[in-house]
Each structure stands twice: as structure tokens, then as C-alpha cells.
């Protein structure tokens, strides 16, 4: 008996599923994005430092200065601050704030909120805090150094930094302005609202956080009272879809509007599909090869030089990284002040072999750890193959990102292959980590610096030049300083920038003004429109 019943149920069920159902397109006022968002740990702007978390905050909060998503090349623009003035001695900057802005809670946004937000970030001292504390703010002095008076806010710096440096840092996520009253109402055990803000939002941005289901979905709804006008997309849904093939199928079927993690082959095919187009956007991330100077073989200058010629730049960017990375051999990303466009190295096995032979190096074996991401593993394997041709054996152990990072911070990765993303839109963000390492000893534990992680003893004059560049007031002179640093870096550093990331976004036709944040920022939705 059960047999008959269940057969019927099954038939019924399959009829339901298999009848030619027309899955409707996404609604006209809703933007549906497929993205890998499983890296969100916290949505507190004082803490969030992951790509997907910053993507959310960039839309739910405003900052004093910000980028125009329709003209990002223009650099930082007035946002909550309408104007700013640098004092004669360069030690203080005073901002004038708009007075017509309200938070999502309905509270007015005052200069006091802005000052408190920055003070809060410094006091919480979470990972991104260095973006602010590098100007001399500490938990003890920040109440005096950052002050609000009426509709103005004054920053007092410990040195006369280049104003562009300071303002670029204020475009960073950590400088987001939060609603003091709402946050403090949710404070627990003096945490300045950190626990609450990790899963909630108290901003004034164009979107309100409607829901966040970790590893699953983020939902944003338009803030109708937004001071720059309510955004056209009333709902933005970001779904976590980790497989590129799944994102592609969803995009082709019209179940999503935007696919952000397509592999090169999927991009190629999706571009040929009617109703879908692909937009290229250079991002700030640099894929580089770090040669650990604790390794005897790798600290030999000849080996460093040879390694630069063992990377098949064209082969890699022409095949498995096609369209998603371009060859880029300097540590500043394209789009940054002072970026060097020279590309001194080419793939040349013979030259590498000659360099090694001249230095009397017969061969050697290196065992390294690589993060288990397809791109990195493939790059590592091509490197493995070309190293083998000159007598160097490379053993690869693939591990999770957390494991590799752990070893890297303990200076235990002989050849690091991975990406570095800038933390704010000023050249110092990369210079201060690639080309700055005042104390190379183990005890210094400068775990945040790439140079230290690779045990690269940065020459004293390069350290000094990196600091001097942050104080140079004239923009052109500053650019020239950075170019000098990069040239010297290319000549001798054991950290070898290889490629810069290009984000290839698959868009349904009709989606306009999409901006992923370029090399300098995070995604912005408020300017996006959908035709017909």
C-alpha cells in the first residue's frame, strides 16, 4: 500500500518541479548580487577589515570625505564634511560638517558623533586602528587630539603629515561615522557597543542593513531620507555563492543581476551570452612573491634575481589568470599616487640559469606553503615547473588561508605567494608595509609588516624615505619620492610584486553605473540603476 501512495506523491512532486516554470527575473527595483561573503566577521566599522564586511559598511555609513562612485578618479571628495582647512604649521585640520544629515535612527548627525566615532575606533584598538593611530592618536590622548565644536571637527596631528595622506585615510572604513546615542544605548560591559555593532548597524548611509545571515546573505534596503537623495535600487541582496560555475548559471538564467566571482573561463563564456556583459575594473590587490631572507638559498642575491625571471608573466596572464590579473611589477597599484609603470622583468629561463651558474649555485630544494586558492596553487605550480628547469626543486604544501597566514606571521613561509590589498587610498598604505621595516629582529615582532614577515632588512635610507614621503606637502614631489623608492625596491628587494587584480564583474544588461570600489575603495550601490 505504501508503495502506491508514495509513487503518487513522488509523481505529483516531480510534476510540480518539472512543469515548465518561468522563473521571473529579479524585480526592477531590486539588485541581486552573487558574491563570496563568508569572510564577514564583524560589521562594526571600528573592527571590520575584510572585503565583504567593508562592502556592507561602505553603503550603510558615511565618512567625512568619500569617493564619487561615478567619478572615482577624481579622488576624495567632500561628503559629510563640506570643507576643511589645514593650519599653518600643518599640525591640525579643521572640518566643517553638513547639518542636514540624519542617522537611520532619526537622530541628527552632529560633529560630536563624528569625533566620537574616531575616538571610539582608536580606543577599541581593533586591527584597522593603525590607520588612525599612525597620526599619533592614542587611547589616552585621543579625546584632546580629536575634538568637536558646533559643526566643526578638529584633528590635531603629532607631525605635519601630507594633507592628502590624512584625508585618504579618512576615506577608510574605520573612519565611518556612527550614531553615538544608538550605539551607547547598546553598550555592554564598557565595550563601546562593539558586540552590538558587530551584527547591527547605526549609520547614515544610503542603505539600511535589513538582514545579515552569515555565509548566506546580506540584505540592504534604501534609506529614503538619505541626504544625497534616496537610491534608485530599493533593495540590494547579496547572496553568498562560492562556486563560480554556480554564479555563472544563476547569471545566465537571470536569477541574479551581478556575479562578482567568475573564473576567467566562466567570464569568457558568459561574455558571449545574450543579455549579459562583463565589466573590468582594476582593484588594488597585488599578487606578489615573498622570498624569505631567513632561507639561506633565497637570501642569495643571485637567487632573488633569478626568481624574478622564472615567473611566466605572459603565460600566466594569458591563460589561467587571463583577464583577472595584469602583470604589475611594483608594490603600488595602478591608480595610486606615484605608481611606477616600468616592468623590468621578463620570463627568461636562460637568463635565470646564467645568473645562477655565474653565482655558482648548483641547485637546491625549497618547501613552501601556499593557500588553497586555485589561482595561487596554479601560479605556484607554474613556478615549480620553471624552477625545476634551472635545478631548483619547489615542494608545495597547500593549506587553508589561516594556516598559511599563521606561518607567514611567524616568518616561516620560504616563498609566499598571495595577495596584498591596500588598507586606504594613499601610497603609504603599501610603502609602509613593503618598504618599511625599522627592526628586522625576531623580537621586534612587527607581524603586520610584509618586509618583516619575509625577514627583509630594509636599507636605512629606504626606511627614511618612506617616512619622509608621508610628510611631503607637495603632491608632485611626493609622487617623485615614491617613484624613487619603487625603483630601488625593484632593484634589490626580495619581495617581488607580480600581478595586479582586475575584478571582472558579470552584469545583466540594464544594470548601469556598477562600481566595485576600484583600487581605492569598496563597492557602492547607491548610484546603480537598472534599465527597463
Amino acid at each position, binding site marked *: 500500500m505504501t*508503495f502506491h501512495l508514495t509513487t503518487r506523491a513522488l509523481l505529483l512532486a516531480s510534476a510540480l*518541479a518539472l512543469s515548465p516554470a518561468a522563473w521571473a527575473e529579479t524585480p526592477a527595483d*531590486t539588485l541581486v548580487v552573487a558574491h563570496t561573503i563568508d569572510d564577514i*566577521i564583524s560589521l562594526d566599522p571600528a573592527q571590520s*577589515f*575584510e572585503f565583504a564586511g567593508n562592502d556592507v559598511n561602505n553603503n550603510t555609513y558615511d565618512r567625512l570625505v568619500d569617493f564619487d562612485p561615478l567619478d572615482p578618479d577624481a579622488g576624495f571628495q567632500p561628503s559629510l564634511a563640506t570643507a576643511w582647512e589645514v593650519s599653518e604649521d600643518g599640525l591640525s585640520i579643521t572640518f566643517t560638517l553638513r547639518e542636514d544629515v540624519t542617522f537611520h535612527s532619526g537622530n541628527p548627525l552632529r560633529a560630536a558623533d563624528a569625533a566620537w566615532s574616531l575616538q571610539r575606533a582608536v580606543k577599541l584598538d581593533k586591527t584597522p*586602528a593603525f590607520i588612525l593611530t599612525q597620526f599619533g592618536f592614542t587611547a589616552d590622548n585621543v579625546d584632546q587630539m580629536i575634538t568637536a565644536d558646533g559643526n566643526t571637527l578638529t584633528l590635531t596631528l603629532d607631525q605635519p603629515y601630507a594633507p592628502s595622506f590624512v584625508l585618504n585615510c579618512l576615506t577608510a572604513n574605520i573612519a565611518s561615522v556612527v550614531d553615538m546615542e544608538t550605539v551607547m544605548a547598546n553598550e555592554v560591559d564598557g565595550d563601546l557597543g562593539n558586540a552590538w555593532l558587530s551584527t547591527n548597524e547605526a549609520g547614515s548611509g544610503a542603505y539600511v542593513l535589513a538582514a545579515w545571515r552569515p555565509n548566506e546573505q546580506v540584505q540592504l534596503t534604501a534609506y529614503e531620507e538619505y541626504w544625497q537623495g534616496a537610491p534608485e535600487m530599493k533593495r540590494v541582496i547579496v547572496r553568498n555563492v562560492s*562556486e563560480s*560555475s*554556480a554564479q555563472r548559471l544563476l547569471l545566465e538564467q537571470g536569477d541574479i543581476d551581478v556575479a562578482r566571482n567568475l573564473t576567467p573561463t566562466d567570464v569568457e563564456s558568459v561574455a558571449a551570452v545574450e543579455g549579459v556583459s562583463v565589466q573590468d575594473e582594476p582593484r588594488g590587490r597585488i599578487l606578489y612573491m615573498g622570498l624569505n631572507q631567513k632561507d639561506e638559498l633565497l637570501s642569495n642575491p643571485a637567487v632573488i634575481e633569478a626568481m624574478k625571471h622564472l615567473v611566466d608573466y605572459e603565460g600566466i596572464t594569458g591563460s589561467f589568470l587571463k583577464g583577472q590579473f595584469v602583470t604589475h611589477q611594483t608594490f603600488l597599484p595602478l591608480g595610486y599616487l606615484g605608481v611606477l609603470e616600468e616592468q623590468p622583468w621578463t620570463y627568461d629561463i636562460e637568463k635565470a640559469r646564467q645568473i645562477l651558474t655565474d653565482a655558482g649555485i648548483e641547485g637546491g630544494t625549497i618547501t613552501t606553503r601556499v593557500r588553497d586558492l586555485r589561482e595561487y596553487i596554479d601560479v605556484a605550480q607554474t613556478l615549480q615547473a620553471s624552477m625545476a628547469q634551472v635545478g631548483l626543486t619547489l615542494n608545495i604544501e597547500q593549506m587553508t588561508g589561516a594556516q598559511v597566514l599563521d606561518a607567514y606571521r611567524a616568518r616561516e613561509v620560504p616563498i609566499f605567494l598571495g595577495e596584498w590589498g591596500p588598507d586606504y587610498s594613499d601610497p603609504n598604505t603599501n610603502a609602509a608595509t613593503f618598504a618599511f621595516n625599522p627592526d628586522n629582529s625576531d623580537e621586534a615582532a612587527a607581524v603586520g609588516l610584509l618586509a618583516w614577515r619575509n625577514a627583509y632588512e630594509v636599507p636605512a635610507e629606504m626606511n627614511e624615505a618612506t617616512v619622509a614621503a608621508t610628510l611631503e606637502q607637495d603632491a608632485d614631489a611626493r609622487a617623485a619620492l615614491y617613484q624613487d623608492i619603487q625603483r630601488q625596491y625593484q632593484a634589490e628587494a626580495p619581495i617581488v610584486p607580480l600581478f595586479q587584480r582586475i575584478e571582472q564583474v558579470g552584469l545583466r544588461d540594464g544594470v548601469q553605473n556598477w562600481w566595485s570600489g576600484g583600487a581605492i575603495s569598496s563597492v557602492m550601490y547607491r548610484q546603480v540603476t537598472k534599465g527597463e
Partner: protein
Amino acid sequence: MALTDPTGAATQPSRRRALTRRRARSVAGTVLSLALTLLGLLLVTFVIGRVMPIDPVLKVVGDRATQAQYDAAYIAMGLDQPLIVQFLSYVGDVLRGDFGRSISTGQPVAQDIARVFPATFELAALGTFIGVAIGVPLGVIAAARRGGIIDQIARVVALVGYSMPIFWLGLMGLLVFYGMLGWVGGPGRQGILYDGMVPNVTGMILVDSLLARDWAAFRDAFSHIILPASLLGYYSLAYISRMTRSFMLEQLSAEYITTARVKGLSERAVIWGHAFRNIAIPLVTVIALSFGSLLEGSVLTEIIFSWPGLGSYITRGLLSGDMNAVLGGTVVVGVCFVLLNLFSDILYRFLDPRST
């Protein structure tokens, strides 16, 4: 993952004897041993978490943290305490229903599990349903017409099921049925139109949409679940049909069947009325086991179908050193497994006519 048979049910007689012994034990003894198993499970998971070379602190503070920030987080997470203190305080919290906070979602683990478990449960339940609905009749018929064409087909179907890498089959199924034919919904549990439209009661969207009498939402959810559930169902089918066949063969060769045949009962009555009724209890055990293994074994399916379930939750937690998430998830899987075992034990104890 292919289904394996964790109790060694292949040798029925010996197994039954073991179960008879177990039947004799008091309920209190069973409960005690369950508690011990769970405690052991916790301990093993906890130790794994502590010996894993994945640093949970780094997950919290991220790539750029300074040593001072790292140390602060290390102490805040209580990792400076002796292991035994950490373990005891964890067990104490669990007993009070507090599974701690996940470091990779920033939310309480209990809340996370309340979200991901129904997703997995729904998938495994439908998969088992498919496996039973097809596997049992297939197994019975294969046994009744032993060596016949249905038997051969059943055998091939089962062996193919045992031999197919699920992740490959899943990717191919998605490509064909969603990408090319458009018969089913894509990855994920729901279409975007229906997301959040049905009030969340059980967390199982099929059930919730039925409760809300929202047929469109039900249809949408069904179109999303049917492919991954069929895939799991196939594995379950392969296992269940083989076991059914084997149980039936054992019964059909028994004397009472011969007697029944001699008495002139129809073949249909012999098979369904007599033999099948007698395999019901071991069959329920097999089905419970199969359900249990789908609950824990659907990690790869979940990854491929962007299914926000328990398997991918635990795996992700494991790979990011998020031990609260892993511990919480493992406890839930362990409790399910133990309850399923208990359930089949009780069935034996109260329903098996020979036990009285």
C-alpha cells in the same frame, strides 16, 4: 560521501544477538552510556580543536593585527587558561545551553545552528524519503524475483550509486537540469523573490510555506531542493535497496514462508503480508542510519548547491579555527546520531515480537 554501514548490519544474526543483549540492559544504563558518548565526543572535538594548527585568534584579528592586538584577543578568548579549565568551563556552558559565540559569524553558535540545522534536516529528510520510496519497493521486488531483470537493474543502480563521486554528479546535475533544461531552481534554498516572504516557524522552508499556505513559495523551495535531495536520495536508495533485498532474501528462505506458500497464499500476500512485515524493524534501523549519515555526510552537496547547512557550517568553522562552531555542530550531529540509535534500540525492544 558514499553511505557506509556503521553497525556492520551485513551480518544480521550476530547483530541481532548483540541487540538482544542490549535490549536486556536497563534504560538508565542506555541513557548513561549515551551521556558518556556525548561527553567523549565533546572531549575529542575539543582536543582536536586545540591541537589543530589553525589559529582562531588570527581569524578574529585578521592579517594586519599587531602583536599587542593579537595578545589582547588571545586573552579575551580565554586561550591563556589551562586546557582542562577551558574544557570544563565549556562543558558547564553547554549544560546551561550556551554554546558560545562563533568567531567567524560573530553570532551565538546556538543561533547559527538554529538557522543551519533545519536546512540540512530538510535536505536529509527529503533525501531519505526518496531513498525509501524507491529503494524499499525496489529491494523487495529484487528479492522476490531474484535473478530477474528488476534484480539486475536494482543491482546496477545500487552499485553505480556506491561508486559515483557525489560532487561530480552534483555539478553535472546542476549543469543539465538547471543550466541547460531550466527544470529546477538554481543553487541556494530559495529564489530571490520568495526570500523572507514566508514566516519562519520551523526553519524548513518546505514546511513553513505549507504552514503559511503559500503555494508559490512552496513550489519555489521545492524546485531548489529537489535536485540536491534527489542526489542524496540516490545514495540512500542504493544503500536501502541493497539492505532491503538482503533482509527479504533471508526471510523468504525461512520455513514459515514455505508453510505460507504451501497453505496456498498468493505470492503477493506472502511477500508483503508475511516477509515484508518481518523485515520492518531492521529496515527502520537501516533507514535511521541512512538518515543519520545524510545529516552528517552532505558537506560536499551543500558546498556545490550553496546550501547553507550544518555540514558546510562545521567544515567552514574547522578550516578557520572556529572551534565553538565546530563543537556546537558536532554535538548536534552526535546527539542526532545517538538519538537515532536509541530510537532503533527502542523499536527493537518494544516492537520485535521475539523479544517478549
